[in-house]
């Protein structure tokens, strides 16, 4: 291994020839080979030739690399030296001499390159470095002339001349680094020209294409990718130039939009096609992304086409749609769907025409059997429904009436959507649309209950059944209701269980004939309907539908959101209307009590039928709601008005809900098995708050309410704690503990604030807080541990099984 690696390689070659010619024997050959290879490793003896030749090769490569690095560095140094020397504008040398010098330099360097690159001379590396230096000196010459003659009018011309010269000779000699240099020069030239001189840079494409072609022929992966990237930039630059200069409002602009989309589509297809070729896979990605970029180009035109933005969007979306339809490209459908949607939202006049693209897209998605697309179409259709509904409201109508009308129309629309969803969900291709309709339908049904079940003034709302100022809406209401009835019949024919759907479709028809501008009618109808639907949904979603169905999920959404929304409303009213604070809070307690009892009733009924029902979900929500109301009522509340002085609707509602509760208590106490404690608690709260509600008045001292509700609160928290041990729930325990802590602390501040001086108060609070916290924590821990051990015991038992 002392000898030169190349020599050994040569030697091995020769040895084989010598054996063939009979100069030496193959044994001698092996011995000679061993002599050179033995020191590498003892194992090498077995397959010396192969292994070591390989070793040598890598060694040889390293040698070449080193010389390359040295020559490369040297070339760089000289190049920098040449440039800096002339740039320093050395004053001791007259310009003429400098010029002569540069000419000599150019000729010498190129001459040297020419000499060394002759095939018979084996100093190609030196030749190539001289060639590069020649190009550098040419560029330096250009700069020198500019310097001597103070030329500054169009500095890019010099760059271009340099780039072309370097490019020509690099292409001729296939000099990679020269091409790289000229590409950098061309790129600087292009950016400079485009940004400063406003030149579109058409020329830039030519050298890039040539470079791409040469790289492809030489199978230079990087060269191809770089030229593809530069071409993409070139394309975008020209596109922007055109947008800037030629996109006028009218046909030219629209034609350009279409052109961009077509080019983009071709590029995407081309990208997909090239992806199969091994050498071009990077190029294909570049092409593909450029295609996408071309799709977005019309975005930059919108500014130039104002005020006709909507036409611009329509043409943009249509072009993408048309091109995608030809190419069967589903992505394009999605994009055009989004663009059409944007158009319909931004359009200044009502976008009635939106239905056309929606229908075309639906058909296309249907043909493609694309689930997502069909779902998108379904959403678009639902959205489209609101365009006429909103825009056809008579101009004279006030803002409030407009929104009430839209909310009212949710009823038949929900019915229609639920029916349509039911029908479509059986279809093989349209099932995703069916799903969208079902989900949207159920949510639409929730909206009116949340939005208009309040004592708001809707006197101006025209009656639907009168077909007066809002006849189109009345007609629409009827049409939707009838359509949903027809849907119901179709579903009935299919022998589907309609018990949960039927009331939802029937209810809107009843609403149509009710005077909803009358507050009492509306309030009573909606509240009774709300609790009725909570009951129906809870019951049927668990008796008809399977596990994890949307109907079950929605049942919880419906019940919980109604409790939360009502709670927020009642509590807000209680804050605003101080004189009826208690009445509002108790009103909410009544509402929650009914919900809670219904939930329990469903549980018992389903239990009787042998079905499981997760009763605790709604239980928990009700528990939190009731606790919160009682807590808020436990503060110092003064000068309450009697409920009998309130509007008649309040009394009516109260009586209805009390009657409902009493009826439910009677039913439940008959049926109930075990777990009565929670029912008793609810009964206590119900009775005491009911009594308070009716006895409250200006003459009653506030202490009575306070004592009642503080007591109730304490009982509630204690029962929760006890209940937590009954059903072994750590969550309830923690909640009850937190509740008691909050209760005690607020009460402490609330009642004794003015009896002590500030500092004393805080010291005692601190000590008490610490002690109380310690005791509670200890108790809680004990309880937790108790629960845990019993849970562990159960688990152990199960694992034993």
């Amino acid at each position, binding site marked *: 291994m002392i000898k030169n690696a190349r020599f050994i390689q040569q030697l091995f070659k020769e040895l084989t020839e010598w054996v063939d010619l009979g100069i030496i024997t193959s044994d001698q050959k092996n011995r000679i080979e061993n002599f050179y290879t033995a020191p590498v490793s003892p194992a090498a003896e077995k397959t010396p030739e192969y292994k070591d030749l390989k070793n040598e090769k890598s060694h040889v490569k390293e040698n070449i690399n080193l010389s390359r690095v040295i020559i490369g560095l040297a070339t760089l140094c000289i190049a920098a030296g040449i440039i800096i020397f002339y740039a320093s504008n050395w004053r001791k040398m*007259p310009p003429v001499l400098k010029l002569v010098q540069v000419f000599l330099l150019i000729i010498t360097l190129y001459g040297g390159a*020419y000499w060394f690159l002759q*095939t018979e001379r084996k100093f190609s590396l030196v030749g190539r470095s001289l060639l590069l230096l020649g190009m550098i000196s040419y560029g330096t010459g*250009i700069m*020198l*002339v500019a310097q001597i*003659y103070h030329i*500054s009018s169009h500095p890019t011309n010099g760059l271009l001349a340099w780039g072309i010269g370097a490019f*020509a000779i690099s292409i*001729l000699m296939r000099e990679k680094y020269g091409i790289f240099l000229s590409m950098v020069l061309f790129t600087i030239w292009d950016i400079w020209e485009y940004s400063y001189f406003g030149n579109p840079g058409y020329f830039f494409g030519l050298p890039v294409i040539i470079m791409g072609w040469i790289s492809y022929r030489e199978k230079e992966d990087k060269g191809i990718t770089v030229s593809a990237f530069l071409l993409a930039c070139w394309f975008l630059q020209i596109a922007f130039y055109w947008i800037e200069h030629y996109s006028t409002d009218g046909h030219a602009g629209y034609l350009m939009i279409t052109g961009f989309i077509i080019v983009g589509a071709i590029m995407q297809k081309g990208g997909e096609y090239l992806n199969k070729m091994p050498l071009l896979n990077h190029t294909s990605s570049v092409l593909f992304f450029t295609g996408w970029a071309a799709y977005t180009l019309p975005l930059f035109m919108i500014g130039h086409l104002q005020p006709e933005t909507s036409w611009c969007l329509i043409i943009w979306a249509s072009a993408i749609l048309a091109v995608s339809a030809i190419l069967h490209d589903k992505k394009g459908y999605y994009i055009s769907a989004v663009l059409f949607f944007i158009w319909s939202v931004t359009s200044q006049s009502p976008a009635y025409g939106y239905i056309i693209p929606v229908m075309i897209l639906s058909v296309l998605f249907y043909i493609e059997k694309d689930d997502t697309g069909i779902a998108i179409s379904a959403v678009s259709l639902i959205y489209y429904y609101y365009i006429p509904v909103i825009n056809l409201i008579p101009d004279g109508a006030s803002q409030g009436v407009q929104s009430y009308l839209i909310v009212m129309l949710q009823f038949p629309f929900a019915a229609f959507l639920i029916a349509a969803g039911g029908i479509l969900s059986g279809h093989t291709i349209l099932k995703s649309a069916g799903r969208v309709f079902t989900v949207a339908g159920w949510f639409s049904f929730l909206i009116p209950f949340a939005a208009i079940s309040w004592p708001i003034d809707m006197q101006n709302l025209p009656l639907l059944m009168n077909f007066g100022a809002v006849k189109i809406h009345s007609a629409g209401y009827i049409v939707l209701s009838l359509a949903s009835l027809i849907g119901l019949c179709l579903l009935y024919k299919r022998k589907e269980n309609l018990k949960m759907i039927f009331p939802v479709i029937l209810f809107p028809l009843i609403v149509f004939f009710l005077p909803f501008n009358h507050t009492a009618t509306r309030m009573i109808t909606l509240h009774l309907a709300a609790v009725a639907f909570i009951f129906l949904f809870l019951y049927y979603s668990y008796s008809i539908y399977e596990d994890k169905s949307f109907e079950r999920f929605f049942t919880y959404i419906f019940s919980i959101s109604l409790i939360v929304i009502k709670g927020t409303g009642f509590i807000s009213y209680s804050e605003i209307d101080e004189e009826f604070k208690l009445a509002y809070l108790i009103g909410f307690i009544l509402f929650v009590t009914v919900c809670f009892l219904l939930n329990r009733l469903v549980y018992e009924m389903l239990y009787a039928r042998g079905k499981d029902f997760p009763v605790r979900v709604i239980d928990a929500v009700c528990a939190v709601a009731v606790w919160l109301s009682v807590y808020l009522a436990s503060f110092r509340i003064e000068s309450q008005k009697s409920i009998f002085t309130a509007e008649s609707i309040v009394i009516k509602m109260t009586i209805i809900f009390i009657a409902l509760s009493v009826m439910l208590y009677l039913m439940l106490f008959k049926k109930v098995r075990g777990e009565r404690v929670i029912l008793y608690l609810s009964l206590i709260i119900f009775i005491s708050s009911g009594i308070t509600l009716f006895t409250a008045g200006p003459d009653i001292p506030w202490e009575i309410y306070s004592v009642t509700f503080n007591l109730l609160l304490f009982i509630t928290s204690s029962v929760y704690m006890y209940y937590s041990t009954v059903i072994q729930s750590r969550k309830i325990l923690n909640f009850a503990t937190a509740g008691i802590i909050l209760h005690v602390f607020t009460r402490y501040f609330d009642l004794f604030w003015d009896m002590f001086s500030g500092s004393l108060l805080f010291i005692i609070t601190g000590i008490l807080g610490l002690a109380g916290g310690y005791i509670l924590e200890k108790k809680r821990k004990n309880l937790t541990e108790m629960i845990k051990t019993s849970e562990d015991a159960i688990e152990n038992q199960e694992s034993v099984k």
Partner: protein
Amino acid sequence: MKLYQKILFPVIVAAQIAVLGFMITKQELLLARGTKVMLKCQPIDPRSLFSGDYVVLNYEISLIGEDIVSKSGIKNSGNPEKKDIFVALKLKPDGKYHGAAEISENIDELKKRYPLIIKGRVEYAGSTLQIRYGVENYFVPQKEGKIIEESLKDVSVEVSISESGESAISRLFIADKEIKFY
């Protein structure tokens, strides 16, 4: 090297030299044959990456006043920015320096009335026009731009202008004294 490379190599090298030769000849001809005018200026001092230090010269005629602009009606035909423009020069009352008399996008129109016309490019168009003529850079040996910088007020330049309006810096004066760096 293949045969075509052997032939084309010297051709390209010759072409590169010809480019340089052309540039030199063009400037030399302009300087030799062009009409000499004196322009007054105020310099500042930046640096070019390849060509070394230079002084930026800002001439009186670099800014065309509002009256001349409005008289020419040049703004009626769209935004003149980044476009070529011709400026007719006439001797100022001091009898030494030239100033702008009229502007137009068409050289022939000005030729009828004025003998001296210089070509420029509109940099910025407001109510006045900012114009570059290509004689704004004066290259100096490294760190020697200061000489010019120190006497900002008194710098004037002799510019050579061809028939077609091309211009080149011929000589630089400070306080009427020619400055030579070589």
